[in-house]
């Protein structure tokens, strides 16, 4: 067996895991690993901040379906990863993060750039490891990848004492993992599946409520069959937009706080809610007691802890969503559900998603989304930051396929979008990647423009510029008597900033300019920034106030 140093063992292990792209930022404690990278064929993308690095790995994982890998040094390198880990943990994104640690003899001595990153990251990782002996290195990497990608995926951190990456050992990558305490359930229970089939066949007003778990599981074709076989209308969470094409009659699009009125009204009327890889988040359910109050609930999830966590369910099924649906489908009777279909049609006609459009030159954010949808023929991968623009992007673009909409759902991380869009583009080089950003969010990881420029990553950055932290301002308008406390945020000149990075940039404020400007940005060979000035006090409708029931929607 070949003798390799720790750094080389890591590279070889990554190859065994079919990793060909890593995101990182070097430093003293990972210098041996970077030395090993120097001679390897591994493609390394240097970010501009460790938070950018990990969000890029996350965006890469979401767009490609592979495990995202990132590297940071000890101390501040590791602590800068924390938001990215929490973000991935909340949205169940498979990541393996390597951090450097001071030499094992110095651990606990408050050495230079020492931080207890395994302690710090404990609550925001699926699992983490500290490696202080090179003999454990290859096995630990094997286990980390296995844990990150199986079951309910999540981020796994490996902290590497500096002497481990320096030491030399034989490289022997294990074929199998030995984790007696980790055995996810993949197969659904037969009896429960029969129960679910019976409930679905008997239901008069069934409704599919599909979340990110279905995307992770790759269950789009099974979901489609479910919808079409028994004519079951489907609403999705923010995490699952596009799992079923949104232009179809039975698609109700997103539900919840800023969901469509028809989706929310359908949850009030359904007699059987079929939750698939969804976790009854408070932004989805509103007041729990009122959510789907008329309905029995079937819940399919790979994580047993999600079942009954927020709401009691009548038919729980633990297992991989795709596998369970495959088992379930043959038992589902073909049905027309005529009356319910008719009702859904009525709801969609009566309560459409809408906004006040006028003949003026004002550029409405909703209109921009529609134009992007039109221009890209609905095919682009849309990545967002967090806030109003994120909701408009979710609402006013018809998503057609899974992994087409990439957003920070659970944690709501401003600053996620730009680096994630870069990662998403690297994960899907052939796709057009469009970042929808707010003027507030984009400034949180703006330094990653440097990454986009350095590697000529052709992401198209559309800034919805309202000179406010719009979502908080909206809450202040509705619930705090327009007391706009600290939400006015003067934007910098984004065109000059783009210029400074050598990125194509343009700013517009007239509706008649939008068409041409979009075309220019989209066709530009490389990254592009389009700064679009939108009305300062435009609101996201409809809206369910926090803590209210879904029946109490405002506007729309």
């Amino acid at each position, binding site marked *: 067996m070949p003798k390799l140093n720790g750094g080389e063992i890591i590279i070889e292990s990554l190859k065994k895991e079919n990793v060909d792209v890593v995101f990182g930022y070097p430093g003293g404690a990972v210098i041996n690993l970077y030395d090993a990278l120097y001679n390897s064929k591994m493609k390394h993308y240097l970010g501009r901040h460790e938070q950018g690095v990990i969000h890029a790995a996350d965006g890469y994982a979401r767009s490609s379906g592979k495990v995202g890998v990132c590297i940071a040094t000890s101390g501040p390198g590791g602590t800068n990863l924390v938001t990215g880990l929490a973000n991935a943990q909340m949205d169940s994104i498979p990541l393996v993060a390597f951090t450097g640690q001071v030499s094992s003899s110095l651990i606990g001595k408050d050495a230079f750039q020492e931080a207890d990153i*395994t*302690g710090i990251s*404990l*609550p925001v990782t*699926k*699992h983490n490891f*500290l490696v202080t002996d090179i003999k454990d290195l290859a096995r630990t990497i094997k286990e980390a990848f296995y*844990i990150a990608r199986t079951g309910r995926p999540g981020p796994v951190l490996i902290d590497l004492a500096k002497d481990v990456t320096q030491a030399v050992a034989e490289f022997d990558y294990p074929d199998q993992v030995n*984790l*007696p*305490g*980790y055995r996810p359930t993949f197969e659904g229970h037969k009896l429960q599946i029969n129960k679910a089939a019976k409930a679905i066949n008997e239901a008069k007003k069934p409704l599919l409520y599909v979340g990110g778990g279905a995307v992770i599981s790759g269950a789009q074709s099974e979901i489609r069959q479910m919808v079409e076989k028994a004519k079951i209308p489907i609403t999705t969470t923010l995490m699952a937009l596009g799992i079923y094409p949104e232009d179809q009659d039975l698609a109700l699009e997103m539900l919840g706080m800023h969901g469509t009125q028809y989706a929310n009204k359908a949850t009030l009327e359904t007699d059987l809610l079929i939750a698939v890889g969804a976790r009854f988040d408070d932004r989805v359910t509103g007041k729990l007691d009122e959510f789907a109050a008329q309905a029995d609930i079937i819940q399919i999830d790979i*994580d*047993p*802890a999600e*079942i*009954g*966590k927020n709401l009691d369910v009548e038919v729980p099924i633990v297992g991989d969503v795709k596998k369970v649906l495959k088992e379930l489908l043959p038992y589902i009777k073909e049905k027309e559900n005529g009356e319910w279909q008719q009702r859904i049609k009525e709801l969609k006609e009566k309560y459409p998603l809408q906004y006040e459009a006028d003949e003026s030159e004002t550029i409405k954010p909703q209109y921009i989304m529609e134009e992007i949808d039109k221009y890209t023929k609905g095919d682009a991968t849309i990545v967002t930051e967090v806030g109003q623009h994120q909701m408009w992007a979710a609402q006013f673009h018809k998503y057609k396929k899974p992994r087409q909409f990439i957003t920070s759902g659970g944690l709501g991380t401003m600053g996620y979008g730009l680096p994630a869009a870069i990662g998403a583009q690297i994960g899907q080089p052939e796709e057009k990647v469009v970042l929808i950003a707010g003027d507030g969010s984009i400034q949180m990881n703006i330094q990653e423009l440097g990454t986009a420029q350095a590697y000529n990553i052709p992401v198209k950055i559309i800034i919805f510029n309202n000179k406010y932290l719009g979502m908080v301002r909206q809450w202040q308008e509705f619930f705090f008597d327009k007391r706009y406390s600290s939400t006015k945020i003067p934007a910098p000149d984004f065109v000059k900033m783009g210029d400074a990075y050598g990125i194509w940039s343009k700013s517009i404020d007239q509706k008649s300019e939008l068409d041409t400007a979009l075309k220019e940005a989209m066709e530009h060979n490389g990254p592009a920034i389009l700064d679009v000035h939108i009305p300062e006090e435009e609101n996201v409708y409809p809206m369910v106030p926090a803590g209210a029931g879904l029946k109490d929607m405002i506007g729309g």
Partner: protein
Amino acid sequence: MTHILSVSVLNKPGVLTRIAGLFSRRNFNIESLNVGKTENPEISRMTIVVKGDEKVLEQVTKQLHKLINVLKITELDKNSIVERDLILIRVKCTRKQRSEIIQIADTFRAQIVDVAPDSLMIEATGTEDKLEALTELLRDFGIAEFVRTGTVALSRGQASK
């Protein structure tokens, strides 16, 4: 409502932190937590006394299961277990009071493990109720120092049910 969970865990670094961290993060209440080695040196057993209704208990169990180093979780049925705490109490006493205290200790099958001119140290094991009763009686003499383990418990064997 308290529940006693017996949890087998792999003896890996940080396993106690992971479990304690989980409880605080998920807003669960621990009454007591006890950890020690088992017959297998690679495995430790934790006895955790949890406060909460059935729903809380279900979440605690499921969330614990998600920890990679947790092997097995059993809720112990209070009607068919042996549960014990251990306490050490140093009681102030004058020469005159000494025999009275020893008598009390005897009644509770406790041991005198240290004698000093002005104090006695008592070691007692038993259920929580018993130890609380003993502590109450000794309080009148003045408790100088007191230390107590959390509960440890095991299910009774099949035959003794």
